[in-house]
């Protein structure tokens, strides 16, 4: 009933109405996209590494000759396994969220004509597959005979385990067991598939390839030395890692412990996603500031309107409008303006999303963000207008009789 009245009144304040609507529209566009970016970033940080992160740690050393590898690996493993609480220690090249040391471009044929992508290689020694706790969904785990010595950067001919995601990428809809791929002269044959296995670094090709990893059973030697995977009960792990550092400093004094990269997998994961979390919290800050500024703007303009219309409000009250009528008038007015702004804002949100997609690796803005953003702004508008509207409702009818 009041709507017609309100629209007529708004037509007299076209400029101010347009400004609030424009502000709501801009806020809507930035809000939807910022929330989407936050969700996207946080989604990245929740990637399933597929391994028992809470029970694992990496131990890395430096400052040795590759020639002494065999002896060194044996001394290191003996030293590490002697630490009380240590469940297992094995030689690896890296771990999830660790240093990306083994990226390789692979081909699906021997001639190198069908490129498969750049994958992360885990060149890991005996015992590591069990220690990682990878969940096998097809085929078998590597057995003792599968661990081959390195020739150059990998074993020449390996029986490997791949992640489900990688198998689906390389051989969509087919049984990956027994399939082969090559990297230069190096040959790989799939014997098993695990549910999840994150690669060491996000690698090339962006975030969609985070699980493009291959477990290559490898015999420790001159090219596979210096990085060790430790496993202990989660509650013991920090102590075991600390003890291991002390024990190695005593037992193998001729090496330098790389403290920066000798951490629990939990720490490595935290470090790996730190910049994403920083960005997400920054976005949350922007969203909060944005909503605050928008609300303040609404409060400011609504207060101005209420003051400007004191006489009209008084007259309406004098001829029978209740306080509730006046309150609802300003609430409905705000609702109409915000609705207008949201309609414009949805178009802007898509335009902004299209622009971001051109520069950043981002999917389309899901439609669900629009009603959510609309609800948030409607709510914000109502909260912001409540104060001025209550003040308007409190205007006594007697104002109508005063001259000004």
């Amino acid at each position, binding site marked *: 009933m009041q709507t017609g009245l309100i629209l007529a009144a708004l037509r007299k304040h076209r*400029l*101010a109405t347009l*400004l*609030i609507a*424009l*502000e709501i529209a*801009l*806020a809507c*566009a*930035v809000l939807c996209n*910022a929330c989407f*970016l936050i969700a996207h970033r946080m989604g990245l940080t929740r990637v399933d590494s597929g391994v028992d992160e809470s029970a694992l740690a990496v131990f890395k050393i*430096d*400052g040795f000759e590759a020639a002494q590898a065999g002896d060194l690996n044996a001394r290191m493993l003996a030293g590490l396994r002697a630490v009380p609480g240590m469940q297992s220690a094995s030689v690896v090249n890296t771990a999830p969220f660790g240093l990306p040391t083994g990226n390789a471009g692979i081909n699906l044929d021997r001639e*190198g004509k069908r*490129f498969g992508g750049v994958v992360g290689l885990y060149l890991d020694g005996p015992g590591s597959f069990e220690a990682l706790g990878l969940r096998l969904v097809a085929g078998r785990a590597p057995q003792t005979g599968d661990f081959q010595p390195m020739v*150059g*950067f990998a074993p020449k001919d390996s029986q490997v385990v791949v992640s489900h995601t990688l198998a689906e990428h390389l051989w969509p809809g087919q049984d990956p067991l027994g399939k082969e791929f090559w990297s*230069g002269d190096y040959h790989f044959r799939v014997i098993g598939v695990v549910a999840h296995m994150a690669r060491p670094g996000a690698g090339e090709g962006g975030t969609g390839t985070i699980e493009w990893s291959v477990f290559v059973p490898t015999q420790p030697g001159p090219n596979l030395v210096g990085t060790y995977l430790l496993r202990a009960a989660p509650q013991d792990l920090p102590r075991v890692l600390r003890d291991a550092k002390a024990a190695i400093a005593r037992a193998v004094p001729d090496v*330098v412990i790389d403290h920066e990269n000798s951490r629990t997998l939990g720490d490595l994961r935290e*470090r790996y996603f*730190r*910049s994403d979390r*920083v*960005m997400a919290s*920054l*976005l949350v800050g*922007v969203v909060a*500031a*944005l909503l605050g*500024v*928008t609300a*303040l*703007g609404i*409060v*400011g*303009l609504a*207060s*101005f*309107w209420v*003051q*400007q219309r004191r006489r009209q409000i008084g007259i309406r009250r004098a001829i029978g409008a209740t306080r509730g009528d006046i309150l609802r008038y300003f609430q409905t007015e705000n609702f109409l303006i915000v609705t207008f702004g949201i309609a414009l804002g949805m178009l802007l949100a898509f335009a*902004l999303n299209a622009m*971001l997609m051109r*520069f*950043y690796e981002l999917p389309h803005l899901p439609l669900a963000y629009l009603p959510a953003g609309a609800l948030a702004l409607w709510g914000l508008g109502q909260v912001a207008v409540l104060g001025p509207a209550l003040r308007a409702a409190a205007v006594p009818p007697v104002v109508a009789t005063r*001259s*000004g």
Partner: protein
Amino acid sequence: MFGYYLDLALRSLKRNRMLTALMVVAIALGIGACMTTLTVLHVLSGDPLPGKSARLYYPQIDPQDMDGYQPQNEPPLQVSWTDGMNLLHAKRADNQALMTGGSVPIQPEQSSLEPFYDDARYTTAGFFAMFEVPFLYGRAWSEADDDGSARVAVLSRKLNDKLFGGADSTGRTVRMEDVAFRVVGVIDDWRPNPHFYDLFSARYGGEESVFVPLTTAADLKFGRNGSMDCWGKGSGDNMKTATCTWLQLWVQLDSPAKAAAYKDFLIHYSQEQKAIGNFQRPPNVRLRNLMEWLDYAKVVPSDVRLQVWLALGFLLVCLVNTVGLMLAKFLRRSAELGVRRALGASRRSVFAQLLVEAGTVGLVGGLGGLLLAVAGLWLVRRQPVNYAALAHLDLPMLATTFLLAVGATLLAGLLPAWRACQVTPALQLKSN
């Protein structure tokens, strides 16, 4: 007249503190966010060698085999040992240097210091003169040292402080990987940002502690860092014969004509190599100068650009907000403006008066924005990113803050001021 308007503006602003505060806060928030992100962008996209960068070039050639060949592809981003040494020894540029990064174990003579790893740069004699590296003591090594794989080293000031207590250490000995090196020079603090000459290690805040001849490092098989791209038979054991690109080559060319001539030389070199069977692909060369190279390598993190866009969007919302508030403020004073108009003030002078008021809001908002930006940058410096320490406000950005604040607020004031000038004096005097 300006002084009078300013006085009017201050009176008006004082009369309605709430509305004024809202406007100032909105401007301050928008400007603060913008200046924080713009300062980070400004620092990160700065010129690491002002005055010299236009004369430094990064040559690229394509020595790969025909596997995966596609015309128009970008040639490798680094050079192989063979090509790097050929181009270095050709000496076709005004100065040139070949380099890569690494880390070496340093064994101090004092028993009080444990052996430690430090970042090193393996390069050739031209490096120091070409990049105008300041020397504290001594000088760079000579080309003869390069040719003879001499055991010589140049230390950073920090390492010299650590090992020799800051004394002139030229002629003394440093042991690295069990080999004695003679110190020939100590450089003063030198930290170009971005770490332009090798973007394959830390792009910002990178700093080497020790410099040794590339030939020496290769002979002693010092550990190298960075990226390496291989093809064909790949790396094998001998990096000098490997079909891998892993070294950065920089050349100094003092005029555009010389740059053009050098590019021709690169094409000619590629053709020559193809003729003798070393190269397989048709000549494919690039010769970008320093800033072009930084731009191509997208050295500024994409997150930083995203933050700038976000902040600009936020500033826009703040400005629209300010336009609305200013409109309310100016229209509320219609009666007062009507009196001024009736007393003979022209539309133009009323307009000017209102803009002075808007500008005052902008100035105060800018001041608030500056404080917020200083706080914002302090927060940025506490972030775990490698460029964190660089985020400081400099003089140009300080000036930009106020220009942006006042400019943006004046722009925001245009519409409300124009609208307020439209009042009919008679009508305003009659009502009330």
